[in-house]
């Protein structure tokens, strides 16, 4: 063992077609929790993890974006090509390649394997989803396949806890893998490669060419131009109903826990600045945000199911016509959908779009999709101003949330339409996207996905939201009011002065000075605005009612016009600073993030102004 452990660390790269299970295998090998879903283009950047073999040898595993060939047509395929060929400035080529193939789709997947083999590197073939292929009657002669390809072949099941055992055993013997000779002749054409794939499959898996991966009866309904769209609308509608209907119980429990902790501190700590910081700052601010965790988890529960089932790429095809009409590529659907979680992975996912102008248009509208950071703001305002009653069998609050999400989508489409006509003009690019087979959502993936969302949210609450809430509490508390002051102390503080200065700008759209203050830390992360409102109102109050619940306080103090105006603001609200940083990095220019911030601010202001004035007009 000591001899092997003394060997230098091994670097292997997982390479394969999109959606063949590379990232699931990477997670299994390294214990990482990278995002996995049943469609092509989830991984757009290289990720590195480490596994220590039984022998003690350390192996660095590089997970790469899926690629159909080593001749890239999209930025994410370029990443794969560069890493495999050692063309990245900051890293050498991997020591060995693990070619991952989907055993149910060998005619497509083996072509890349033949290309990789020509590089002359030590290789092993991972026959992933071997269990699915076998269960559906596809016989693969693994020994013959290994002989034909001239490399070890192992079966893997990346969604089972020990599905990588054979691959680990092969990694132990990596030193003995046969070294292929780099091909010196001209690169064969795709047609020549495909001919070779067919020859091999005729010998090792005669049933592979006729293997049926799709359920055409189901697709006839799901992808029907009318019924398919109706099904999509109903699905999304029901999801938003569930977000409000199912979340009540856990939200009430969290609210009670937050209120109880505030009361406990008030009862057990002497009056002073620390008590004020904990009750008015931390509990009113952070507690006001964490209460929305159940709603975020319910929303992602459904999104993860749709992702894992293979439904989402079908929705992309259904909406390709709409996307084409506004000038976006059909491939923009997945990045825009990713933006429902957060605009940052959505913007990074645009790397799957080959045409630069289409990619730029998608980047520019991605922040208009309703990211999960807006959900706490929407939920707070809907909870405070939309009555809890049913419209037919549906919950009115759920309907309102659905309408707000639709408003985000419609505004993104509208802006894209305008951008593609006046600025980033390009011709329509037909949608070429590989459809995955339907699969039952994997419980492990679902659990990991939900855990990751919860972890991300709680980490944000515990770090940036907590920090900004404390800073805002300080700015709201100091300097102390002068002797003889009659108003709440916050009005004389730095935050109060800032709020009053900003109110000059925001008064025409109905925002008071408290809202104006909350918008500033909201630039760091949108949900901080909820925590900031909690802190600002707690500091303005004479009793502890805000630490218990912000919703009834704003319901009593704001007009309906102000609430609607703030909702309209957050449909278009200028994105957080992290999003701007990613746009700068992905476009290599400050021009685009600055343009983005400017147009979104203008759009948000105009929408709030119109909403505020129209609501006032209706109310009088």
């Amino acid at each position, binding site marked *: 063992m000591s001899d092997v452990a003394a060997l230098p660390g091994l670097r292997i790269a997982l390479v394969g077609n999109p959606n063949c299970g590379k990232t699931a295998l990477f997670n299994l090998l390294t214990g990482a929790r990278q*995002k996995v879903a049943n469609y092509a283009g989830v991984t*757009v*950047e290289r990720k590195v993890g480490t596994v220590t073999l039984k022998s003690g040898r350390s192996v660095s595993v590089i997970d790469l974006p899926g690629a159909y060939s080593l001749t890239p*047509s*999209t*930025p994410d395929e*370029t*990443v794969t090509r560069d890493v495999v060929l050692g063309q*990245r400035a*900051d890293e050498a080529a991997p020591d060995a390649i693990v070619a991952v193939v989907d055993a149910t789709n060998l005619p497509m997947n083996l072509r890349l394997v033949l290309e990789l083999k020509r590089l002359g590197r030590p290789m092993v073939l991972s026959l992933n989803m071997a269990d699915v292929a076998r269960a559906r009657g596809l016989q693969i002669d693994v020994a013959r396949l290994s002989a034909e390809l001239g490399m070890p072949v192992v079966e893997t099941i990346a969604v089972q806890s020990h599905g990588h055992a054979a691959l680990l055993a092969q990694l132990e013997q990596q030193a003995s893998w046969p070294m292929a000779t780099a091909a010196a002749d001209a690169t064969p054409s*795709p*047609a020549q490669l*495909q*001919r070779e794939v*067919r020859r091999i499959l*005729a010998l090792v898996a005669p049933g592979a060419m006729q293997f049926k991966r799709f359920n055409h009866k189901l697709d006839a309904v799901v992808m029907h131009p009318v019924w398919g769209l109706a099904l999509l609308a109903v699905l999304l509608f029901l999801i938003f109903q569930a977000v409000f209907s199912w979340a009540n119980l856990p939200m009430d429990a969290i609210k009670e826990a937050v209120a109880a902790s505030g009361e406990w501190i008030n009862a057990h700590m*002497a009056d*002073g*600045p*620390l*008590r004020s*910081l904990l009750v008015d700052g931390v509990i009113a601010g952070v507690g006001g945000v964490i209460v929305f965790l159940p709603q975020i988890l319910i929303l992602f529960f459904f999104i993860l199911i749709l992702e894992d089932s293979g439904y989402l790429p079908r929705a992309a095809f259904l909406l390709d016509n709409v996307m084409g009409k506004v000038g976006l590529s059909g491939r923009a659907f997945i990045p825009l959908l990713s933006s429902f*979680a*957060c605009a*940052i*992975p959505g913007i*990074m996912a645009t*790397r799957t779009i*080959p*045409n*630069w*102008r289409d*990619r*730029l248009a998608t980047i520019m509208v991605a922040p208009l999709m309703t990211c999960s*950071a807006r959900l706490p703001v929407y939920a707070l305002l809907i909870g405070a101003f939309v009555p809890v009653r049913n419209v037919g069998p549906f919950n009115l609050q759920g309907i309102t949330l659905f309408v707000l999400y639709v408003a985000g989508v419609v505004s993104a489409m509208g802006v894209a339409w305008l951008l593609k006509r006046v600025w980033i003009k*390009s*011709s329509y*690019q*037909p949608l*070429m996207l590989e459809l995955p087979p339907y699969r039952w959502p994997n419980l492990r993936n679902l659990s990991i996905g939900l855990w990751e969302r919860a972890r*991300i949210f709680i980490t*944000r609450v515990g*770090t*940036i939201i907590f*920090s*900004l809430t*404390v*800073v805002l509490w*300080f700015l709201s508390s100091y300097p102390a009011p002068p002797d003889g002051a009659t108003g709440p102390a916050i009005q004389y503080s730095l935050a109060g002065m800032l709020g009053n200065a900003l109110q000059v700008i925001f008064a025409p759209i109905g925002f008071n000075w408290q809202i104006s203050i909350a918008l500033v830390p909201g630039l*760091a992360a949108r949900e901080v605005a909820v925590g900031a409102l909690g802190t600002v109102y707690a500091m303005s109050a004479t009793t502890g009612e805000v630490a218990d619940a912000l919703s009834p306080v704003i319901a009593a103090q704001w007009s309906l016009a102000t609430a609607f105006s703030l909702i309209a603001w957050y449909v278009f609200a200028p994105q*957080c*600073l*992290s*999003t701007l*940083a*990613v746009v700068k*990095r*992905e*476009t*290599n220019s400050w021009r685009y993030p600055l343009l983005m911030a400017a147009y979104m601010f203008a759009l948000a202001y105009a929408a709030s102004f119109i909403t505020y004035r129209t609501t006032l007009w209706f109310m009088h």
Partner: protein
Amino acid sequence: MQNLLVALIVTACTGYAVWILIPGALRRTAARQALKWPWPGAIAARLQKAAKVSSGCGCDGCDAKPLKPAADAAQPIRIHRQPKL
């Protein structure tokens, strides 16, 4: 005592918020400068991570190097006739 604790908490939170929100290039420069001082292991490790080009930047983190915009060329679609076996 309460005043001292509040001062410590507010200072730490302000420092953290500034560190997270400043532009990445400035943070990397600051981290490289700070590494010239002796720090405890955990802080030094975090500073070394921050000094690298690949910095976390958002909800899910992202560690890509900048990609140059691709040329605005339409991708030709080649259709290959299925060869007869």
